[in-house]
């Protein structure tokens, strides 16, 4: 095992030269063997293009989370424009391999269902995994889909533009009578070339690009980014307790706002309007608390490497503590209504089930994974230095049933836990009585980064593990910045949840996951 992987803690730098470069067969064997254990799962698989002098054109990196070691296992292999697909043995890699094929024109041979993810050209002119010519247009979501034949079969296509105020995506339901046999989800409409724009960074825009990669997870993205920068910089200062407190409060406020909004929307989707109405308002209170600290409701531009742009004073902490306690009482009241209402719960229970085994095979992450009994939570599995000891004693909250109710219940319980964390941290901050100063460095220039290195930084965003991998070149600039949003790993879970359901159950299944289109489309 030792020479197959290198271990890296969350947000620490490793030298690229230290990462084992295995033959393809050893690489594949190592991945299959390592992921057999429950404590380990794949968190990212991606390709980096090599300089001309390297023996192979590309390096394929695999990153495995090992929650017993509280570390990531990193390994790599060299590949050219084709290699034997891994997805038949590890189905959770299917979307990763499709992404690689699309980005670089590398064909994972034997992939079971090789289709584009985002519908853009490969970055290598003349190399396209589907042999499309430069002159061929690439139209979003124009691709092969599963089909069903038979007398009572029919297909329902929805999107890209949906009925509400929501991002675009294309959904195809294969139905037999009333029952959905399979839902196929095709995305890419939101593609803005995020990873391409980050190349050769960091620049002043980098953090803002990442904060808008998935706008409802701005704080988690900013934390992953600033943590990666801190890891790669030569400045070796540990974050102060006060700084960790502010980071944690912002991250948990983001989680609370989104969970509250989704539970309200779930109630709305089963026509239980009181909880929907109240949660719609209450969600705004948490956004306003974020605005109190950040100046804007989504926590944009507040974090900087090694600090925060505005800091936090004791009066602010006192204000937020009182405010959050008052709002929490309203929230408890609104949610108790829903969770005490049998006719509403009946719609959630046994709907959209993803059993534990399927969830593991799909590679579900975050609250959706925990709702299917997978006890992974990056807050405790891979402590992020920028969050200090905020999560000491925290354990992942799980429930095995895997249905819409379970996903709602996990969020309900996590709301309670997040409030407790915030209350405790704020009380400690107030008792300490010392303000956190605003940081003025890195407004116009960023720290110099170590050359030829890699930093993996994972934040437990409200949807799950948000993975950033920064790789620098010889000049300390980004040679690759890989983002794996939790949604990327969970979309297939939503598709799976719809099997044997009716289309009318799509809204609640969808809302119970509430995945990000832009975070996936990058």
């Amino acid at each position, binding site marked *: 095992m030792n020479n197959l992987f290198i271990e890296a803690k969350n947000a620490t730098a490793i030298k690229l030269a230290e990462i084992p470069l295995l033959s393809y067969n050893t690489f594949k064997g190592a991945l299959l063997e390592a992921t057999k254990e429950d404590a380990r799962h794949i968190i990212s698989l991606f390709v980096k293009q090599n300089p001309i002098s390297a023996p192979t054109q590309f390096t394929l990196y695999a990153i495995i989370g090992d929650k017993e070691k509280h570390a990531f296992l990193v390994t790599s292999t060299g590949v050219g424009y084709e290699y034997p697909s891994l997805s038949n043995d590890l189905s959770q890699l299917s979307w990763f391999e499709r992404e690689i094929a699309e980005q670089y024109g590398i064909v994972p041979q034997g992939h079971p269902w090789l289709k584009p993810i985002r*519908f*853009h050209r490969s970055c290598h002119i003349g190399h396209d995994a589907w042999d499309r010519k430069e002159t061929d247009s690439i*139209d*979003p979501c124009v691709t092969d889909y599963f089909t069903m034949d038979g007398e009572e079969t029919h297909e329902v296509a929805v999107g*890209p*533009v949906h*009925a*509400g*105020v*929501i*991002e*675009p995506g294309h959904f195809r339901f294969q139905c037999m009578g009333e029952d959905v046999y399979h839902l196929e989800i095709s995305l*890419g*409409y*939101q*593609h*803005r*070339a995020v990873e*391409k*724009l980050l190349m050769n960074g960091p*620049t*002043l*825009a980098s953090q*803002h*690009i990442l904060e*808008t990669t*998935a*706008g*409802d997870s*701005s704080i988690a993205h900013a934390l992953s980014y600033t943590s990666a920068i801190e890891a790669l910089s030569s400045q070796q200062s540990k974050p102060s307790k006060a700084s960790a407190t502010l980071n944690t409060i912002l991250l948990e406020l983001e989680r609370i706002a989104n969970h509250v909004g989704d539970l309200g929307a779930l109630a709305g989707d089963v026509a239980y309007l*009181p909880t929907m*109405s*109240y949660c*719609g*308002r209450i*969600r*705004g209170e948490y956004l*306003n608390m974020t*605005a*109190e600290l*950040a*100046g*804007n*409701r*989504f926590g*944009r*531009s507040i974090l900087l490497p090694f600090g925060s*742009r505005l800091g936090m004073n004791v009066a602010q902490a006192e204000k937020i503590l009182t405010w959050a306690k008052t709002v929490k009482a*309203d929230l408890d*009241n*609104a949610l108790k*209504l829903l969770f*005490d209402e049998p006719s509403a719960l009946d719609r959630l229970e046994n709907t959209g089930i993803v059993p534990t085994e399927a969830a593991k095979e799909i590679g579900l992450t975050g609250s959706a994974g925990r709702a299917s009994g997978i006890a992974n939570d990056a807050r405790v599995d891979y402590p992020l230095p920028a969050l200090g000891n905020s999560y000491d004693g925290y354990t992942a909250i799980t429930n095995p049933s895997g249905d819409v109710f379970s996903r709602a219940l996990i969020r309900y319980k996590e709301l309670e836990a997040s409030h407790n964390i915030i209350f405790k941290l704020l009380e400690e901050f107030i008792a300490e009585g010392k303000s956190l100063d605003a940081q*003025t460095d890195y*407004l*116009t220039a960023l720290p110099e980064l170590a050359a030829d290195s890699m930093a993996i930084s994972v934040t437990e965003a409200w949807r799950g593990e948000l993975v950033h991998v920064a790789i620098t070149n010889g000049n300390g600039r980004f040679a690759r910045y890989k983002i794996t949003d939790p949604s990327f790993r969970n979309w297939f879970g939503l598709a799976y949840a719809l099997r044997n359901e009716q289309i009318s159950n799509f809204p609640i299944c969808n809302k119970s996951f509430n995945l*990000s*289109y*832009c975070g996936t*489309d990058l």
Partner: protein
Amino acid sequence: MFKAILARFKQGYKTGKFPLKGEPKLPDNFMGRPEIAADAGETDAKIAASACPTGAISCENGKLCLDMGKCIFCGKCASVCPKIKFTKDWRLAAFRREDLIIHAGDKNPFDNPNETTVQLTPPKEIVKLYKNSLKLREVSAGGCAACELDFNVLGTLAWDMGRFGINVMASPRHADGILVTGPVSKNMALALEKTHASMPEPNVTIACGACAISGGIYAESPETAPEVMEKFKPDLYIPGCPPHPATTLDALLRLIGKI
């Protein structure tokens, strides 16, 4: 049922005072309409521009200018250049693209209506048609979900935009106008154009957020098609990243002549 009635009493009346009975509740360090000191010149512009991630700062005739259509309100320019100040004024929207540019020494146009070149009154025909009912279709075209979420918020009881006759429609066929968020990703260009073309005439186009107005942080992206929005000739620009709900509600009410 009884529990629901009790809860209704506990939750109380929570619709905000803005705009009927007062100003919106904004946080102390809210980043609203920027003000630039009259003497901010070329040197200041250079310093401020060095901190700006979207190229919103420029210098015209020796005066510092800030383009709210590009600005993401990160506040970094104000941190390095004290001549720029972000006030707490939530009123940011404009009917003309050029009115989003703030020059050194410009007074707040809403407080000084007689000393500004900014167009403050909406086109008469828009007011005539939509004063009592404006049905909007929203299209996210490469948006990050923040503009979408903070527009959605206007439908909640906290803001209740429906009381002004403004609603969101599920189909462009039923819409008087389209509100666009996002920098218009190439992959959404066709769907956006088709949605726009599906609206009955006449109609209004609203660009909501820095991305929809100028491409924002994605202006340099090879995968966006900002020319689509130019073709539509927006009737209303709502700056912000994302615009605060108060900014958006203020903007919509100005468009239909209710403020």
